[in-house]
């Protein structure tokens, strides 16, 4: 009997070594541990034996049962791992390619700038307003204190329609419409397209984009205006900016200013971009003219305020190094694709 145990164990070990597939492993399991397997044969012989012998053989069979089960489990695990590996091996792809290639899309650069401005102003409590592109002389000129014979009203600057309407030449009519609608204290901005009757070149286009703003309350002063402009430009350019005011003439403000920002490229030493002056002319602004407040039905003896206008095209051109204003219209993809990270 002893000898037989040894023989069975050896035969098992021999067979197990040759196994390379799960199916073979299952066959071995049946051959040795199955109901009619090798170990079951031993058990059949038990009846004819003495109790003492029974116990001895039973013990031997049990030992083998445990041993075979362990070995088979171990081997099964190995086969599984091997199989996983092989499967993955076959699943090789070239991860450096991009077969589903889809192109990233883009926003128009002026839309990008407008969004940035709107976000900043909304965070500062401003309300964003719109106005019509086709305006009346009243909203575009008269209410803005631009006298009847002012050259700005000439046909050489303003597009007129047959019925007397015109294309707004600035976003400032939004100021008037805003004042009519709201009551002070008020903070409004108005972005949009504006039109000028002029020939186009690298820095002029007959259609461009402005961003208008206005703040009105009791006792608003030039000091407030400077504070506000500094804060706003700091937010737009994401750095501390130095600004200066110089006299500038716009009929709808008094006093009126041109606001310059210290050139961010050269830090004020003078470079090609700032035309060697160290300053960039950026914003027209000023204290709202009393006539304009009156046109907006606001009492200038009680309230004062400031207003400003920024050229969004110019801002976009500065921000994204665009050297010519003309490609902003027309949608050439070689231009628009620059506003998506490819």
């Amino acid at each position, binding site marked *: 009997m002893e000898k037989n145990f040894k023989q069975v164990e050896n035969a098992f070990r021999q067979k197990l070594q040759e196994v390379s597939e799960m199916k073979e492993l299952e066959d071995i399991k049946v051959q040795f541990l199955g109901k009619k397997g090798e170990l079951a044969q031993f058990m059949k012989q038990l009846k004819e034996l003495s109790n003492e012998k029974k116990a001895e053989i039973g013990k031997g069979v049990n030992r083998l049962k445990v041993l075979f089960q362990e070995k088979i489990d171990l081997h099964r695990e190995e086969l599984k791992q091997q199989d996983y590996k092989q499967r993955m091996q076959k699943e090789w792809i070239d991860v450096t390619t991009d077969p589903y290639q889809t192109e990233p899309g883009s926003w128009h650069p002026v839309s990008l700038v407008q969004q940035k401005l709107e976000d900043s102003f909304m965070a500062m409590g401003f309300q964003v307003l719109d106005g019509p592109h086709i305006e009346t002389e009243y909203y575009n000129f008269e209410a803005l204190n631009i006298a009847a014979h002012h050259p700005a009203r000439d046909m050489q600057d303003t*597009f007129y329609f047959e019925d007397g309407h015109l294309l707004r030449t600035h976003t400032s009519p939004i100021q008037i419409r805003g004042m009519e609608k709201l009551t002070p*204290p008020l903070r409004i901005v108005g972005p949009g397209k504006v039109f000028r009757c002029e020939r186009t070149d690298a820095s002029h286009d007959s259609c461009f984009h402005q961003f208008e703003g206005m703040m009105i309350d009791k006792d608003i002063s030039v000091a407030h205006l400077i504070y506000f402009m500094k804060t706003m430009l700091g937010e737009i350019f994401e750095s501390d900016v130095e600004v200066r005011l110089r006299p500038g003439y716009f009929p709808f403000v008094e006093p009126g200013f041109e606001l310059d920002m210290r050139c961010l490229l050269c830090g004020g030493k003078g470079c090609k971009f700032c035309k060697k002056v160290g300053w960039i002319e950026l914003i027209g602004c000023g204290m709202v003219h009393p006539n304009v407040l009156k046109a907006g039905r606001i009492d200038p003896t009680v309230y004062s305020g400031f207003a400003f206008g920024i050229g969004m095209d110019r801002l976009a051109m500065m921000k994204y190094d665009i050297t010519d204003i003309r490609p902003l219209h027309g949608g050439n993809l070689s231009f628009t694709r620059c506003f998506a990270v490819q």
Partner: protein
Amino acid sequence: MKISLNWIKDFVQIDEKLTSKELVEKITLSVCEVEGFEETGEHLTQVIVAEVTAIDPHPDANKLSLVSVNTGAVETRVVCGASNFKLGDKVPYAGLGTRLTGDFLIKKATIRGVESEGMLCAEDELGFSEDHDGLMILPAESKTGDTLADLFPDQIDVIMEIDNKSITHRPDLWGHYGFARELGAVFRVPVEKMEPHPEILKGTGDPLIEVEVLAGDLVPRFTGISVDQVGVLPSPLYIQHRLTRVGLRPINNMVDLTNYVMLELGQPMHAFDAEQIEGKRLTVRLADEGTKVMTLYQKEVTLGTSDMTICDANGASVVAGVIGGLNTGVTAETRAVFLEAANWDPTGIRKTSTRIGLRTDACQRFEKALDPEMTDLAVQRAVELMKLTNPDLHVAGDLVDIKNRLYDPVRIETTTDFICLRLGKQIDKDEIRDILVHLGFDVRGEGSELIVDVPSYRRTKDVSIPEDLVEEIGRIHGFNNITPQAPLFPIQRPVFNQQHRFEQKIRNVLSDNGYHEVYNYPLTNQKSEEGFGMDSEGVMRLLNPVAEHQNQMRRSLLPHFVQTMKENQKNTLSFGVFELGRIYHKSCSGELLEPSRLVMGGSEKGGSLGDTFFRLKNDIIKLLSKLQVADIKWTAIADAEKRFFQHNQISATIYSGRQKLGELFAFTPEFMDQYELKGDVCVADLSFDVLFSIEKKEYRYQEPPKYPAVNFEVSLLMPEQTYFEDIREIIAAASPLVTKVSFLDTFLPEEHAGKKSMSVSIEFRSAKKTLNPDDITPLQDKIVAVLAEAGYYLRDSREKE
């Protein structure tokens, strides 16, 4: 406009320690925009007055000579190419190491074998003029050995280029004197007054010319004087040099002095040849229609009834305020002149100048509304200057001075407190008064009170209200001396611009899906719109277009958008673009409308036009989902509504409920050919306004269904061009237990020519119970029955065919 610092210094003392750069910055920050400046004449300190002592021929060159000169210290010899001089002439000598204009350095040079110890200079080389026709011959009385800077000290100057646009509202700044006044205030130093000196204008005998002014309301003032016993000569050198430095070409004393007065005071003048004035009488009046005037530029202009003229007996001789006439102009033979300094209605002058297309220095000034009170001063200054060349001139008769409509006095009453409040800075009362006084305002009032009379040169349009004084104080005190201060604002409930937020969402979704945003011009022309079937109904046409292709407002985004796609196809065939923009038209009731549209376009290399359509459709569905627009339905565009450029089969209308959102379509092959479009192109044209205003489906939590769904798939036979949507509607209407009908696929079975097989999946679900076969079988039967009723039979149920 060019401004000379020396000229300003004729009237005001400026601290010599100030650099040109600092001075320019002061002007920029307190007065107006200086576009640039140039320091002139520094090199003249190294150029010496030399006397020609010998002229010998060059041994090797005919056109050159060897000139010996005495420079005061030494005798030296230079090679010279000019020949306009003689022995004893005084000429400018630049020694070795001298740097002339244009950074031209004089070095020892050997010219055709002869060494030259320096150079004799022409006017252009020294910066006096553009003249290069020979050496500059210096006045005989010049002292040998002096520098040219000693001889012409005025030539060492700073010339500033003023941005004309920055002084359109300041008529007082169109001459040097105005700048002197400003700097007087900036530095708080006195400015020399322009006082009237009646003795200069005191004439004897009768005036040579009489004047009559008609249309007086367009001529606030007309001043003139007759002068005889004059001769036309070159102006004094320093005047010639000054005019040259600020960009004018000196001509003769008569022309130069009128220019000089204009550049000094800002008052344009005109000199008539008094002997050429027919009838010895000038009439100032509006022109007759079609009047022709031969101008000084020898070009004839035609005037209308709103143009002002000065006429003699021969008719209109001068276009008033714009340009003088040839017939009565000064010539070399002129012996008597009538000097005119007038003040014209600014608007009239601007209109005349625009109409005849002439922008002269004179009209540029008149249209700014000049001060009428300076015409007599201008005449006085002109006579004074004329005496420099004609000391024996005779003033004939009295000054002609016709005053019609002067500007009303302007008094402003305010307080120093108001000014400080507006500026946001406490400025001393005395400083405020001091600034105003220096600017020429007459100031009275006690304590904070200010009673300010505005001087004539600031009241024609510039200063009239307290806010104007805020600007005066602010700019002279320095806006940059104001400390920024945070405004105090109450917290208010934020009001968002929902439309802009909606636009932002659209941009995000579309750019996320690979579309590029484009802007096209809102201006177009009728031809381009006709290409898309638009007649001229409701169009907004421009009166004054810049270009023929941009003479009206667009009524559709499509024409430019298709053009954009075509242009891009030249470089790449596979792309997506979109545009959000307004279109413009007038409604039948005359109302102006600016609806917003959204167009999207997809271009593919070519292969399957259907695929391109479905790709766009899928992107639109994603967009609508993000915009929370629900209940979407797609239907083929009915033939009656199809426009000629839309593809017969590939074109759909998109609805949300009953509201039309827009269309998605391909173009006809003919249109593709006509517009040179390639590959597969589809576009969607959607109404932004409907998308924005339509009721949105809000996000809501829903309990998961309690009872399971049962799916039933059928394959139906139908004519090839049957729409799934029609099938879906039939099935959906069959029972409320149908919760979903999905399209699976179609194919063309060989055994059924001309028909297609469509497989759809139907989902049944009850909210009340689990459906069992007893419920489902009758449902299935019913659906098969209603389909059969509509003519759609199951593919495998042959017996029903």
